[in-house]
């Protein structure tokens, strides 16, 4: 894409020159703001252009009747059975079939950010309620989300809220609010944590709901970030949001999630300014981010390692597989991203940590099963993919499918190798295409987005 870069501001919009807007550009936007992209979605994005496509991603889209019915059925089943496996299947269904991919993608980000594990909470109802909050505020107001999380039942169970009492303050929640949810390490003192814990005392759970236990709340004077008063939890959160470190902390998260694994200081500062300017409203921040030259820079293309969700959900969406929700959710767990069960309070480290010898083998196994088997669901006739891409000859099939999956034109040498493998695969055209899919999905380059 010929996007002319206008000013020195890394978040300045990249301006289209000659109004060219390639399939790879469209795919880059769709994949970063969702999970994978079908040929049809890419075609539509190419037709509509960057701005219209982005508007569609940022604005709520109506879900189909079938989606609503099935999502409701799966959600009710999870509540009825009390099985976290059923809740995982529900969320996987949402990510796979929603018309609002960016919402689900942000919900996943907040799930990682406000990491809470069913392993300790042991309540499907509470985990589902927390997940709803992430979705409700996905593209909304981070301030509101942070406040809501401070009273979230699952969060309070996870961080021992009921142990935080007037005479014996428990610092778990206060520490994580500062370290993991708003400021990051080094941007608060131990004294701030101790005082903040006092402010959150009495924020308990009773009969499965948030309860302000007045008798256990410390009403004395506290000093947090140099501000003194009879501070309560809400006050502490507002003070955290006021700190300069807060928008920076959120900026780093967003940049690592959507743009580059190691964003430069200039970019972080610029995005932090945007977050502050928009008063923590996520939609306008993301709008600027997705229009920015930083997002469209060559260095940002295929720069992120696909998380297990990106890989599993994205591959199934792209290939329009009728997903086996249970098997797919299980695959996520094996690949290191078990929904509703992050490993620690820090969530998932992500990035290069997604790839190890073990997980690479598992990713290859996933590719093999997806392309050739039925374990993860039924794939439409592979030849249909070739037709959608307008690929007729053997060379076209190889090139087009590789380009579609890899998000770039394959190099000449790659094309030769893939063509040779395609030819050697044997069997009919369907078998060869399946073989080609399996090979491409297994490549190191496919693990990038």
């Amino acid at each position: 894409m010929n996007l002319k870069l206008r000013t020195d501001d890394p978040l300045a919009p990249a301006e289209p020159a000659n109004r060219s807007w390639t399939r790879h550009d469209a795919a880059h936007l769709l994949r970063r703001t969702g999970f994978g992209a079908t040929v049809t979605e890419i075609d539509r994005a190419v037709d509509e252009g960057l701005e219209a496509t982005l508007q569609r991603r940022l604005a709520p889209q109506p879900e189909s009747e079938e989606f609503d019915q099935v999502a409701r059925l799966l959600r009710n089943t999870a509540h009825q059975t009390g099985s976290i496996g059923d809740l995982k299947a529900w969320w996987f269904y949402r990510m796979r079939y929603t018309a609002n991919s960016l919402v689900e993608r942000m919900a996943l980000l907040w799930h990682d950010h406000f990491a809470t594990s069913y392993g300790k909470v042991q309540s499907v109802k509470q985990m589902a309620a927390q997940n709803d909050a992430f979705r409700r505020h996905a593209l909304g107001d981070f301030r509101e989300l942070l406040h809501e999380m401070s009273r979230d039942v699952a969060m309070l169970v996870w961080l021992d809220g009921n142990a935080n009492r007037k005479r014996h303050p428990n610092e778990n929640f206060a520490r994580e609010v500062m370290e993991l949810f708003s400021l990051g390490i080094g941007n608060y003192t131990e004294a701030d944590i101790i005082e903040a814990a006092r402010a959150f005392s009495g924020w308990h759970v009773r009969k499965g709901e948030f309860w302000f236990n007045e008798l256990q709340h410390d009403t004395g004077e506290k000093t947090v970030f140099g501000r003194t008063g009879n501070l309560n939890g809400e006050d502490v959160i507002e003070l955290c949001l006021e700190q300069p470190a807060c928008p920076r902390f959120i900026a780093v998260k967003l940049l690592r999630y959507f743009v580059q694994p190691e964003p430069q200081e200039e970019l972080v500062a610029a995005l932090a300014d945007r977050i502050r300017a928009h008063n923590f409203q996520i939609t306008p921040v993301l709008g600027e981010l997705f229009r920015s030259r930083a997002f469209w820079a060559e260095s940002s293309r295929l720069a992120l390692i696909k998380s297990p969700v990106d890989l599993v959900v994205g591959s199934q969406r792209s290939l329009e597989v009728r997903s086996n929700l249970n098997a797919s959710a299980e695959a996520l767990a094996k690949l290191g991203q078990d929904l509703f069960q992050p490993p620690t309070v820090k969530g998932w480290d992500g990035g290069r940590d997604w790839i190890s010898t073990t997980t690479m083998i598992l990713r290859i196994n996933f590719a093999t099963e997806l392309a050739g088997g039925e374990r993860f669901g039924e794939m439409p006739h592979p030849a249909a993919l070739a037709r959608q891409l307008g690929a007729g000859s053997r060379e076209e099939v190889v090139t087009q499918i590789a380009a579609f999956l890899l998000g770039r034109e394959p190099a000449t040498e790659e094309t030769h190798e893939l063509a040779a493998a395609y030819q050697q695969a044997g069997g009919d055209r369907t078998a060869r295409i399946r073989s080609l899919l399996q090979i491409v999905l297994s490549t190191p380059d496919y693990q990038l987005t």
Partner: protein
Amino acid sequence: MLRCPPRFFRHSLLLASLTFCSVSVAFAEDPEPRPLAERFPSGAFACLEAEDLGPVARQLQESALLERILASPQYQQYRKTDQYQQQQAGRQILEAQLRTDLWTLFEKVLGGRWIAALYPGDQPQQPHLAVLIEATDAELLALIQERIDPFLDLAGDRVERFETPAGTPGFALDGKLYVVIAGETVFAASTRDLLEQLQSGSDPESDPSAASLATDERFVAMADQLGDGHELRLFVDSHAIGAATDGRMGIPEKLDNPLASLLFSGLLELVAHSPYAGVTVDVEENGFAVAASVAGAAHELDESHHVFFPSPGDAGAPAIPQVEGLIGGFAWYRNLDQWYRQRETYLQPEALPGFDQFETNIGNLLPGRDIGEDVLPLLGDRMTFLAALQNFDHLEGEPGLKLPGFAAVIELADPEEGADTLRLFFQTLTAVLNLQASAQGREPWIMDSESYGGAHISYGRYLSTPEGDSLPVVFNFQPASALVGNQFLLCSSVDLCRELIDAAQTPADATAGSSRCFDLELHAATLADAFEKNRTVLEARAIQDGTEPERASEDVAALLELIRMMQGLQLTTSAGEGTYELRLQGSWK
């Protein structure tokens, strides 16, 4: 006085004699068909006899069940596969060649009488096979022979044609199967010699009292035991098989699964030492019955295996209480105490360490007691487990996932101490679950009690009655226990406990339980009701597995319809004086 009748009288006498003889012949022309087993040489170690499968096939063809299966979404999906297309193509070719459909082919060829038997071969793993089929349509057989002849010619060296001593043509395939079609009869065998023995046995001139399969001692015993006139009857000469193998027909002495051992160790040991066994299958208009008989007296096995069988004359497994909404259950006779003590006799070494963990875990629920020494000896030999539909009167609403109520009826050898021990278990379990309830933010139980039917019911009720239409699954449970006579009731609902107390007051069926080892029953209507109550969960499961929503709904509907076509299933086993019998019965509407 006449010395010699006049000619007229001689002629009349002759005429009368001839008339009498012809009438006698007319009656004699419709005798009982000769048992096919009489035509087989003696020494078979297994044989399968079939009779009148034609009407069964016709019944199946016209049945609502088959109609439903063919209309089901699964079958419609299968029809789109390449495998189905190939099968249909093969079927059409065959039907065109034979000028008849496969149902009619089955009815006319295999719908009459046939028998297949296995004889010892030169090597134990290569027995000889002999088959005799009495078709009901000689013309069709002739047509089949005419149609396959060209294919036999095409097979070249693989097919050898020959003529029997009687001059009947036959053919052999790869030297492994010899076949002769003579009129309405098909003879087939894996050796030429066996084929000729079959044919000579079928000679109407042959001596019916000559040695044959029908005169083999164990076959006769089996036939006496199970009777004639079954659609299918299988005979296994386990003595002969045992002699040719390891003496136990390959049946292991020890199993690697404790539950399998509890259920099957006794039966397997009996089979390993049994001289013969037989199985029959009967099909009626609205049901079927499979009966198996294993010769051998359970009390003649080594003492360690007596734990699986009631003593002769002893009352065996109890009858399953017929409570309202009964879905099904099973009852057994097992000396659990002795089984546990002697578990090393029945189980392979790798299955034993699990018991250490079991004892540790169960010890937490029975403080200060050892399961083997202090608990199992208190139990009697009879236990029943059952499931029944439940209402949810203990809730203001109902759970989302509606489970049946479950119950165990445990006979106690020492009612007083046994009841106290089980109550201890019950109370400790409730306390542990309440601690979990606190951690998970759900409603705990408090222990309460009531008197009912002369018994004292202890049960857990919710501190506050839960409200809602889709309550968590844990609210299906309202644990209850009671002692009635020497039976301890452990139930997941108070209502079920009350019903079992009522059932215990009703005099038991005197014929039930006699020498019975195991009894299982399943009621299709209530099973379907249980599934119906959870229809959405079943649909959700199908969707989770990748089925499209509409198809998921159709699949569940088809499953429920199929279950409702059934009435029930019952399996009973009993150890008689000289035999062990198993009977499986099913019925449909």
